[in-house]
């Protein structure tokens, strides 16, 4: 049994960080699953892992340094690696032909052999099928159940999770093409597109909305109804609210991944009555301060 410091190629005084670095480098080079054809890799990896078991643990390292335990103090039990299964002839769900699928298309001897091998693996997982599904903005926030009509006939009920973002791909396990034998069916992959909304726009977990208010609501304040994706709410507009004033409705945005919700930002826009109003004109004409107020006075040009 070699000295673990020699195995990792570090000095006995090496820091814990250096030991981890040395271990990672050696383990990456020798991990049996990253070197499936190299028989020596397993021995090497076990030696490296054993050394790190000892030196990576401050307590065990101290005991080793003081001679309490020897280098075999922490030998790992015999372990079965992924590579022991992955090249097996019988089909398994992780089998992947994409590394050579192009070679199987020809009509030469190699393509024939590869195709034969493919057919021989009776338990092949079915292919994943791709679909696209457009949904409304509100549905992307609240969640919904949509029925997708498949081009090859039949339908698929798709559960839209609340807070879905445009372009997100949903995976319906086992709803793809049927497999062969015990391989099981593939998955349906549904790319969901969120249609633009007349009222709302979304930025991250927050949504924004531009809301027209009347002149009297702007000047005097008041309570107004504001649409949100989950229904209307009442919001208090303070006195003297201007065009461009942004109000925040806490928790009325899109659901966050870790729980909670974003906010809805309501941008106010003051709108005058469509047809000219003589009373308003008279009032403004008599409003002395309004004549001296110049909203452009801090502009240079």
């Amino acid at each position, binding site marked *: 049994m070699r000295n673990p410091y020699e195995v990792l190629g570090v000095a006995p005084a090496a820091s814990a960080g250096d030991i981890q670095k040395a271990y990672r480098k050696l383990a990456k080079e020798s991990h049996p699953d990253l070197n499936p054809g190299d028989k020596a890799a397993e021995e090497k990896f076990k030696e490296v892992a054993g050394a790190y078991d000892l030196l990576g643990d401050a307590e065990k390292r101290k005991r080793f340094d003081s001679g309490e335990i020897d280098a075999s103090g922490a030998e790992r039990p015999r372990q079965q690696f*992924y590579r022991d*299964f992955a090249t097996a002839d019988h089909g398994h769900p*992780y*089998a*992947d032909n994409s*590394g050579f699928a192009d070679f199987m298309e020809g009509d030469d001897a190699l393509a024939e052999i590869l195709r034969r091998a493919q057919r021989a693996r009776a338990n092949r997982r079915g292919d994943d099928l791709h679909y696209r599904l457009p949904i409304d903005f509100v549905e992307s926030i609240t969640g919904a159940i949509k029925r997708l009509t498949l081009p090859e006939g039949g339908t698929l009920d798709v559960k839209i999770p609340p807070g879905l973002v445009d372009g997100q791909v949903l995976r319906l396990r086992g709803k793809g093409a049927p497999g062969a034998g015990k391989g099981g069916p593939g998955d349906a992959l549904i790319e969901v597109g969120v249609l633009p909304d007349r009222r709302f726009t979304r930025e991250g977990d927050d949504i924004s909305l531009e809301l027209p208010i009347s002149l009297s609501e702007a000047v005097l304040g008041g309570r107004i109804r504001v649409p949100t994706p989950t229904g209307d709410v009442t919001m208090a507009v303070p006195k003297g609210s201007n065009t461009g004033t942004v109000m925040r409705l806490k928790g009325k945005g899109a659901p966050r991944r870790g729980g909670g919700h974003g906010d809805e930002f309501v941008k106010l826009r003051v709108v005058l009555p469509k047809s000219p109003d003589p009373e308003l004109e008279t009032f403004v004409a008599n409003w002395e301060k309004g004549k001296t107020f110049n909203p452009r006075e801090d502009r240079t040009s």
Partner: protein
Amino acid sequence: MTLNKQEFLTSSGLQVQTLEVWLEQRWLIPEQASGGMNFSDMDVARARLIQDLKTDFGVNDEGVGVILHLVDQLHGLRRALGQLHKDLQATSR
């Protein structure tokens, strides 16, 4: 030997939330049986590889997905090469 979900969690030391993510990412595809999931020895070995990549090698989640895909392709190639080797031996005899 196959393990059910609970046995698999116990033997691998994985958190149930972590397993859910791995299943969601299809890093693990256990057999679906009437009584729930069945984890084969292969699934267990694959889970150990993922753990090695994540905890010992410091690979992040995106990296794990890429590595698994490449490893699976490599095994596909190895299988094809092995078949070719066998066929060549059979014809040369």
